[in-house]
């Protein structure tokens, strides 16, 4: 358990370090995610602790970003001028993204599985 938490924090720490050193806009935790994936693929074995801790974190993501969402309290003026555009764009983009992803995936699967 502690080892798993330490692993996650260490990957994030390395990710933040790489982020600062490289100056890339890629966020530290995302770099940390790649580092952890690489580490897991290179060192085979069961990782019950890591599975448990990361599943717990993912299951409770919602509560973690509530304080950030409450930050909307300070964004009244931005919402008043851009609210409609943001909502229209978000809804349309969600529909389009889902449709394009599904169509491309189905098309490519059919091609490869017919060939196999």
């Amino acid at each position, binding site marked *: 358990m502690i080892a798993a938490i330490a692993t996650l924090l260490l990957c994030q720490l390395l990710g933040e370090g790489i982020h600062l050193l490289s100056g890339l806009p890629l*966020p530290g935790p995302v770099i940390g995610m790649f580092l952890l994936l690489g580490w897991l693929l290179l060192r085979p074995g069961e990782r019950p602790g890591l599975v448990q801790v990361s599943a717990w974190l993912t299951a409770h993501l*919602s509560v973690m970003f509530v304080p950030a969402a409450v930050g909307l309290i300070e964004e009244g003026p931005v919402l008043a001028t851009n609210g409609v555009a*943001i909502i229209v764009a978000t809804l349309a983009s*969600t529909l389009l993204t*889902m449709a394009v992803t599904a169509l491309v995936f189905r098309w490519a*699967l059919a091609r490869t599985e017919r060939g196999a």
Partner: protein
Amino acid sequence: MSSIWHALQATPLFWLAVTLLVFEGADRLSKRSNRHPLCHPVLTATPMLIGILLATRTPYPVYTQNTAMLGFLLGPATVGLAVPLWRNRALVRRAAGPLLLALFAGSLTAILSVTGIVWAFGGSAQILATVAPRSVTTPVAMALASQLGGIPALAAVVVLIAGVFGAMVASPLLNLMRIEDYRVRGFAAGVAAHGIGMARAFQVSELGGTFAGVGMALNAAMTALLLTLWALL
């Protein structure tokens, strides 16, 4: 009495307790609605907490400072997204080519469509940077928005709206398109509507939910890479 209030209300103890209590109430409401996307706990908890801050005249910086612990967990949670990818590596490997192609197409569509529409409405660079990561899981979207010069709080809400809407339209849209393969249905829901889409996919099928989880994690990485490239150009 008022001195006790003043001593307590500027502490993490007070605001964490309030936030967790409100969230728990919101979560029960969501459970009672059989997890309807419109009753997503963040959607109900956020206005309640804003109401409490306004009623108690608490400045937002005091609140955010005292609930920083919750936000801190977003970092390790993001790193942990690697774990489901690793666990499902066999599934991912079997469909790797089509999956990556669909991921690339979906991620690019998400970024271009949302920024294109906001741009057409005359949105500023700050608003474009806020909405660009709208289809990825919240912690990554907030980090990307702040890296690109957007507003993280607004990014969190945009992502939430995308997730709720995506979860609501996934079944009707994919039925209309006659997509029958649960791998495709789940993956599309995860790429377009991240964790909320994934939760919805798991309600329908285990295989779909797994692919939605894979789609969510891969899209966090793909969108981060594409936006990084974009920022560098």
